[in-house]
């Protein structure tokens, strides 16, 4: 049993048991410090900046196609300088380009922004800082992970400028459409680059994920038992495991598709006639692709969501100044969601002609997901309940996440019913569902994370007032964009259609569509406030102190601008869970994780006093520190 001599007034309760010497500052040149850095904090910022870049591109693409949907008669001639030939001589958007826009918007948002931009940023930044590690298990692999992502980004970006345009078969790239270059322009070179880019993206995700898991399990600081880990780290942990198990499957699907496209095999193709000519491919099955894709695709939506849930758990507890309600239930529900996410994929395929009995099985499994999801919402609300709530921008975004998770999750229960899905499949109802529950919820989680951890990332504070304006415009904007889509969807309005004005049934929705598009433009514009705030605060923001939110987790015990290695001295030890907020009897309303129970006799619960007693091996009285 170790005993530690400490001085009452020093803040460090530290042991350094990691043999590798990162204690000293690393001084490299510009290249090793900012470009090919192996410091997890720099890599996190690289992911963040790249993610923000992609979010702007993805958002802009969506506004362009919303213009077409909301204002079908608008003359888009003014876009010609940017889009060139994609504007037809009549000043309209080229229909095939519309498909490419939808495809690229989905791909960019799901993979590049909400997977790489979110997990990449916050797993990298927070895992070592919150578990008390000097860096990731392998800094080199971590660096590779970013650079694979970077190259993948470059390839995807280049594909936007191809003569024939980028991929156009939807973010789900179903064959045969995506397999046949003859079918649409978007299945030509654009699709090839899409596949190459995604293969690199998968490699990047796996490198990152392996590192996250290995770091969390193996290099926690002393005292950081699993039940003392912040929920953020738990969320990143489950996310990484889900990714490790599902991304390889997408790789298989992409590989077989590449063979079909470029080598003439028939994994997914059979009996296809183009212009009256039969293709040589026989024996393939397009449904097989859907199975492979959605085996990744459904877990992927949780890869996108779980980190956001983890971030918001942490932020909500901190700013409600209350322990998170149901810590173990939160972990349990994430685990349960993670497991379930692998056995529900066929709810995306109810209308592919699958056996109705099989459909019922998947329906049952799908609906069960509502249970752990509801547990999470309940716990968020009970954490907020009677809290001493500090409405920081990060807190508002977290509460916004809870709201979207609820509204979007409820429509999932509709869609999960295989009979109702016959009507709703591939309509705007689905679009509304997943944009609220996945798109907006995760986006809000990401924003919350940026506002909350900005002081740790850049040593300065973001401007609160701009943050509030950003929040309210975005929050109201998102609901204005996606709520009306439920109605349009129930009416049967199909997604991915370029134009609907020719259909008598749908012309009644012109106003609603106009509203949606108008709101989309405003919401995107509101993001510029964030961009300004982000970059302005980076240089000019108020200088932060070491623990601006009075938070318990370990990252706030580092200096304001932590160097490579995170703690200049020894790594702090951990003595308690991360949610000792407003503990009765405590001097302050928070007790950071590195404060031992022996220093807080005034607030210890009986079993915590037992802990100290037990360890004092004998009858010596417990020594109480006087401050």
């Amino acid at each position, binding site marked *: 049993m170790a005993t530690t001599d400490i001085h009452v*007034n020093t803040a460090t309760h530290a042991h350094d048991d990691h043999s590798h010497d990162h204690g000293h500052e690393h001084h490299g040149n510009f290249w090793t410090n900012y470009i090919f850095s192996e410091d997890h904090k720099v890599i996190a910022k690289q992911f963040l900046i790249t993610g923000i870049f992609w979010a702007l591109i993805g958002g802009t693409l969506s506004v362009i196609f919303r213009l077409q949907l909301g204002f079908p008669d608008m003359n888009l001639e003014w876009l010609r300088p940017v889009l060139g030939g994609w504007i037809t001589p009549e000043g309209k958007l080229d229909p095939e380009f519309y498909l490419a826009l939808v495809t690229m918007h989905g791909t960019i948002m799901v993979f590049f922004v909400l997977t790489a931009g979110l997990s990449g940023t916050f797993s990298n930044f927070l895992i070592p800082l919150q578990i008390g590690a000097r860096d990731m298990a392998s800094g080199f692999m971590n660096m590779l992970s970013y650079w694979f992502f970077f190259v993948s980004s470059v390839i995807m970006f280049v594909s936007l400028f191809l003569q024939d345009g980028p991929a156009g078969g939807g973010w789900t790239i179903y064959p045969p459409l995506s397999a046949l270059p003859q079918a649409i322009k978007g299945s030509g070179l654009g699709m090839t680059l899409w596949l190459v880019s995604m293969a690199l993206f998968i490699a990047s995700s796996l490198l990152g994920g392996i590192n996250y898991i*290995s770091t969390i399990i193996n290099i926690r600081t002393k005292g950081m038992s699993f039940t003392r880990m912040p929920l953020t780290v738990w969320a990143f942990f489950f996310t990484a495991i889900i990714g490790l198990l599902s991304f390889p499957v997408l790789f298989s699907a992409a590989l077989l598709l590449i063979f079909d496209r470029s080598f003439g095999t028939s994994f997914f193709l059979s009996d296809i006639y183009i212009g009256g000519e039969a293709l040589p491919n026989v024996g393939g099955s397009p449904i097989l692709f859907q199975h492979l894709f959605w085996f990744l695709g459904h877990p992927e939506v949780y890869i996108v969501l779980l980190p956001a849930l983890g971030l918001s758990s942490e932020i909500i507890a901190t700013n409600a100044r209350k322990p998170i309600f149901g810590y173990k239930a939160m972990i349990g529900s994430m685990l349960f969601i993670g497991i379930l996410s692998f056995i529900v994929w066929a709810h995306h395929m109810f209308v592919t002609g699958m056996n109705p009995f099989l459909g019922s099985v998947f329906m049952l499994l799908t609906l069960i997901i509502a249970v752990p999801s509801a547990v999470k919402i309940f716990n968020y609300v009970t954490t907020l309940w009677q809290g001493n709530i500090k409405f920081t921008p990060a807190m508002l975004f977290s509460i916004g996440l809870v709201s979207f998770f609820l509204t979007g999750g409820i429509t999932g229960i509709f869609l999960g019913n295989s009979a109702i899905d016959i009507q709703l499949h591939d309509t705007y109802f689905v679009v509304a569902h997943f944009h609220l529950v996945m798109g907006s919820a995760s986006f809000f989680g990401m924003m919350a994370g940026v506002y909350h951890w900005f002081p740790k990332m850049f040593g300065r504070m973001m401007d609160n007032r701009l943050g509030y304006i950003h929040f309210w415009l975005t929050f109201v904007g998102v609901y204005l964009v996606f709520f009306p889509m439920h109605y349009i969807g129930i009416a049967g309005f199909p997604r991915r259609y370029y134009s609907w004005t020719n259909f008598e049934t749908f012309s009644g929705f012109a106003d609603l569509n106009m509203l949606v598009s108008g709101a989309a433009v405003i919401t995107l514009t509101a993001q510029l406030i964030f961009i300004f705030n982000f970059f302005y605060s980076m240089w000019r923001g108020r200088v932060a102190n070491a623990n601006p939110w009075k938070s318990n987790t370990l990252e706030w015990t580092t200096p304001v601008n932590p160097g490579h290695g995170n703690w200049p001295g020894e790594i702090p030890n951990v003595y308690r869970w991360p949610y000792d907020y407003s503990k009765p009897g405590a001097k302050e309303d928070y007790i950071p994780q590195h404060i031992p129970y022996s220093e807080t006799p005034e607030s210890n619960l009986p079993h915590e006093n037992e802990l100290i007693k037990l360890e004092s091996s004998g009858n010596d009285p417990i020594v109480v520190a006087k401050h």
Partner: protein
Amino acid sequence: MAEIKIIEEAKKPLAMNPRKFALWLFIVSVCMIFASLTSAYIVRQAEGNWFVFQLPGLFTTTTVMILLSSFTMHWAYVSAKKNNVEMVKTALVITAILGFGFLVGQFLAWGKLVEQNVHFVGNPSGSFVYVLSGLHGLHIVSGVVVLIVALVAAFRMQIHSKNMNLIEMCATYWHFLDVLWLYLFLFMLFNR
């Protein structure tokens, strides 16, 4: 400022060698690739229109070779534990040669498939055999590279009973590739 004694221990959490652990995670992801491909095989087969043919006999020979190479790999590992560096080198060389021979054998087996008129392009039943064995072959290439890395380390006297990490990871990966092929071979044999 009083000097006090605090008797509260922060327990060291469970920890393994992060690199070895990462290798196991990598193995898990490779398993998922092949699990998904073999399930795709079954799903596709169940849909009918499935061309049935004999697997080339050469696959049996290559299977024996890779099984043998697992023994020599283990031999290298045991020798390293006993600090018998010369033996480590010999065993690693034989393992690498067997691995290379396996690759050549797989390639010749593809030739036999072509002779049977089973091409990469054609009915998926044939394409799957190429994809499964080809992708596994690619992993064997990476395995041979790892073997060579270990061999270089052995020549630099960096492998001995106090420094087993590299050879342990090398052995784990190689045995995994062996078992993986065994699985694929039996899978293809029984799912004609």
